[in-house]
């Protein structure tokens, strides 16, 4: 099947038949089980760990705590310096671990470990005027926290509003799990990670070992949404320490509840948007001021304001990021870090501006198209936002959008909303090896990760296409740091990065076969894209999209349903239509959750997230997802990379919550500026 075709996942049968082994399901002889003991205070010091009762339980092998845990070589990252100091930086931090013959024994003994603390009192609540707000040196991944250009001028129309988003947790289907196996001074880690090679390098540095002595295997990963990215999560480090200490393979499976404190989440935000425009909607000045939290354990500055640096034309532009350092779990990447919360604010404010100017929101965005990237000054490699907006408007029936608060159907108020979407399209250097196997088929190897996206399948298609053979004759090996280097699955750049290297390796092998005069087993070609990537031309590379939503608000109960959503994307060349659709739609569903149901509630008294399981943290269920559709433009971008793809993993969530929020405004006539928009918050504003 050709590139782009909706091929089924190549490992689909293995997954439904249970043959695909995830990290926690790997079997090795002599395995034992570790369970983490977590801090019960949010800030302070561990005074003592009394493990007497735990050690007395038959089957308990060892208990590790600060003071007797194996030492790490690098303790500069407090979050990963597991059991290396008595300091407690957040509730739920790992302060000890029990290793036992069975999981049940370990869990039982874990409860018998008595930890005493010197408690210092905690500060866990982000407020817009938090006294500790500071400017970070840089924001993720490596950008200036503040930017400013142009002179502010008096505007005919202005919008000055603040939006608020709560903390969100990633909640991939598969909780993090690790199996650590030491053989002499070699460590093998079966780990649910988004990047085997990056995980290897990080673990090797922490343990003070050369990277060659560490191997990380992640054949199958059940989702990550950023929570299995780098730096590693402390559970992986703990598994390695426990296994070294007891001299046996150790399995450590994080529970769903533990994930709410040790595997990351998205920061809450306060985002002030100021836009000044002429009456005809042309933006003169635009400002985006972001307030977020970070943990005292490790700084993470989510780049929510970057979208305002590149999205629309303006004469003057200012963005700032301020953080409060709190005694909270470490926040980190969650699907489209930066763009996702940032575009919620920007695209909601654009809707407010459209209303203030009396201009259709689709038209307003079209009027503010920049000619070049306002941030870098470079030309866009391609930017087809206007086409996405126009096509979406036509398909969605946008022209029938009512005046705010005027369409009533039975007991529902009905409205429509739109928002733009964008996400950077980058690629990182990678290596791949293509070779002719003994039976004349082809094997392609790269330390890529398939975290449920279907990357293994897309890479198989890319390889088959480049080799000019059917996909059935190609086997792609991924998910192992021993394979040629591949960057992690993150930033929507996995497929672009790995695919590029796979393409070059397969092209090279095809040439080699032609020169040799046949597909001789053992022929191989290795490719490395670092040179090509370094020499890429200066373009601003981004995907774009337009999100449309229709909502129905129950006038009596305040319940909000979303009968229809449509996403139209220009995200480069699509390698597999089925997988792409599931990425786009999946992102949109996650945006639906962000808009209406998801929220991590901080328990002020105890200092941790209260609704820490799936019964209380409400991701959308099938019955909430009614008519979600995603379509895309045929959009190969020759300036992005040789495959023309731009990355599709994250853009689906970007703008989705804004489109829904804007639709709620259109339905009710009232603007809600805090997510999630819940029935209790809506009720007081209904007719």
């Amino acid at each position, binding site marked *: 099947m050709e590139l782009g075709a909706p091929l089924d996942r190549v490992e689909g049968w293995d997954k439904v038949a249970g043959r695909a082994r995830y990290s926690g399901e790997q079997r090795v002889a002599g395995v034992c089980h570790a369970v983490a003991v977590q801090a019960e205070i949010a800030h302070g010091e561990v005074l003592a760990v009394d493990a007497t009762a735990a050690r007395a339980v038959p089957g308990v092998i060892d208990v590790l705590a600060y003071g007797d845990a194996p030492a790490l070589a690098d303790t500069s990252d407090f979050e990963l310096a597991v059991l290396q100091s008595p300091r407690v930086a957040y509730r739920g931090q790992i302060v000890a671990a029990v290793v036992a013959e069975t999981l049940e024994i370990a869990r039982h003994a874990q409860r018998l470990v008595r930890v005493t603390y010197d408690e210092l009192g905690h500060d866990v609540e982000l407020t817009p005027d938090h006294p500790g707000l500071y400017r970070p040196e840089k924001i993720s991944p490596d950008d200036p926290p503040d930017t400013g250009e142009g002179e502010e001028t008096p505007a005919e129309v202005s919008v000055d509003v603040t939006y608020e988003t709560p903390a969100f947790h990633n909640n991939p289907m598969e909780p993090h799990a690790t199996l650590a196996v030491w053989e002499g001074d070699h460590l093998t880690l079966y780990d649910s990670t988004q990047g085997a090679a990056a995980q290897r390098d990080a673990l090797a540095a922490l343990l003070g070992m050369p990277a060659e002595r560490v191997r990380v295997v992640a054949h199958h990963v059940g989702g990550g949404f950023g929570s299995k990215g780098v730096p590693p999560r402390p559970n992986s480090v703990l598994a390695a320490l426990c296994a070294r200490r007891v001299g046996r393979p150790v399995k450590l499976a994080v529970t769903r509840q533990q994930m709410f404190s040790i595997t990351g989440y998205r920061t809450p935000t306060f985002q002030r948007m100021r836009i000044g425009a002429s009456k005809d909607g042309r933006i003169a000045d635009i400002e985006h001021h972001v307030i977020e939290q970070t943990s005292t354990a490790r700084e993470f500055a989510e780049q929510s304001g970057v979208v305002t640096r590149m999205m629309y034309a303006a004469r003057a532009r200012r963005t700032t990021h301020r953080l409060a350092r709190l005694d909270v779990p470490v926040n980190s990447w969650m699907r489209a870090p930066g763009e996702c919360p940032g575009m919620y604010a920007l695209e909601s404010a654009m809707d407010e501006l459209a209303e203030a100017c009396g201009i259709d929101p689709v038209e307003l965005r079209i009027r503010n198209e920049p000619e070049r990237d306002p941030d870098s000054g470079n030309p866009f490699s391609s930017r087809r936002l206007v086409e996405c907006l126009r096509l979406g408007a036509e398909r969605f029936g946008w022209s029938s959008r009512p005046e705010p608060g005027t369409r009533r159907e039975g007991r529902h108020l009905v409205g429509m909303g739109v928002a733009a979407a964008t996400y950077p399209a980058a690629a990182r250097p990678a290596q791949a090896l293509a070779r002719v196997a003994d039976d004349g088929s082809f094997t392609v190897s790269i330390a890529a990760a398939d975290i449920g996206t279907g990357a293994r399948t897309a890479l198989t298609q890319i390889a088959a296409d480049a080799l000019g053979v059917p996909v059935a004759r190609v086997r792609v090996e991924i998910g192992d740091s021993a394979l040629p280097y591949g960057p992690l699955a993150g930033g929507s750049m996995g497929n672009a990065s790995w695919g590029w290297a796979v393409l070059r390796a397969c092209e090279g092998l095809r040439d080699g076969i032609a020169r040799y005069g046949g597909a001789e087993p053992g022929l191989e070609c290795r490719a490395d894209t670092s040179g090509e990537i370094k020499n890429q031309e200066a373009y601003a590379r981004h995907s774009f999209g337009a999100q449309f939503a229709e909502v129905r608000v129950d006038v009596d*109960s305040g319940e909000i349903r979303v009968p229809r959503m449509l996403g139209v994307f220009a995200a480069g060349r699509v390698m597999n239509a089925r997988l792409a659709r599931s990425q786009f739609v999946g992102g949109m569903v996650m945006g639906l959750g962000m808009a209406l149901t998801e929220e991590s509630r901080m328990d002020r008294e105890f200092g941790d997230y209260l609704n820490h399981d799936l019964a209380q943290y409400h991701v959308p269920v099938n019955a909430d997802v009614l008519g979600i559709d995603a379509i895309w433009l045929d959009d190969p971008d020759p300036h992005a990379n040789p495959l023309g793809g731009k990355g599709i993993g994250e853009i689906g969530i970007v703008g989705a919550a804004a489109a829904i929020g804007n639709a709620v405004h259109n339905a009710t006539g009232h603007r809600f500026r805090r997510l999630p928009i819940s029935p209790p918050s809506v009720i007081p504003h209904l007719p």
Partner: protein
Amino acid sequence: MEFLRPTSWGEALAAKADAPGAVPIAGGTDVMVELNFDKHRPEALLDLNRVGELATWSEEEDGRLRVGAAVPYARIIGELGGRLPGLAMAARTVGSPQIRNRGTVGGNLGAASPAGDSHPPLLAADAEIEVESAARGTRMIPAGEFYTGVKRSALAPDELIRAFHVRPAEGPQQFSKIGTRNAMVIAVCSFGLALHPSDQRIGTGIGSAAPTPRRAFEAEEYAAGELDWAGRSPLDERVARRFGELAARAAAPIDDVRGTAEYRLHALSVMARRTLTWAWKDYLNGGATACA
């Protein structure tokens, strides 16, 4: 932990008498969650799945249905939906297909959560719970007396729930539930309603808005008196509204992660008003649901 597997009702009662601390397990959809969270370590689990009669139902001489404690929701919907429409509506909102295949009304009663979805329809339909112990035999407990506190019931430590008894609907029944999403959700609050035309009465049940599921007596009496049972004239909008207000007044909600007390009161009044409106409309159209 011991795992007891009686194969008959008599054996089950004897086992419970011997070990009052043994935790019965039917579908396990509450019990297994609690074990998994290590909330308690019961001395024993008493598996009721081999007591076949608990998963059966029958028609009794008094005209009522006697439904075994371990009949799962999926079968209540499929086999009894016509005769117990209120309970079936509630059952359809429980969890997911998997939970409806395993979960039972007996288990919902055993757990006695104020948010359990069976309770409002059982209250509204005047159900009685049949419980039994080896020592003292059978007791019939009206649903309204069964719930005694948050997750507490009138069940004695040596007793087991055998069945519930309820008259097939002789008039329209309704159930309404509000959650933060459309499925797999614990009720923010819920409301069950049954019309009893032969004695010109209304039954109600409030869920998740007080320490226990409870009836809204004042609302029931008010509406029963205002409704034109014989003349079958349409429902006066003001009566529906007042009914809603009185229903909300019967509640004593709290703020929690699922919702605020204020919202619960508002939502209850909306659900009560709506369910009465729908049920009365059905009644005017022939009161169709009577004895399917």
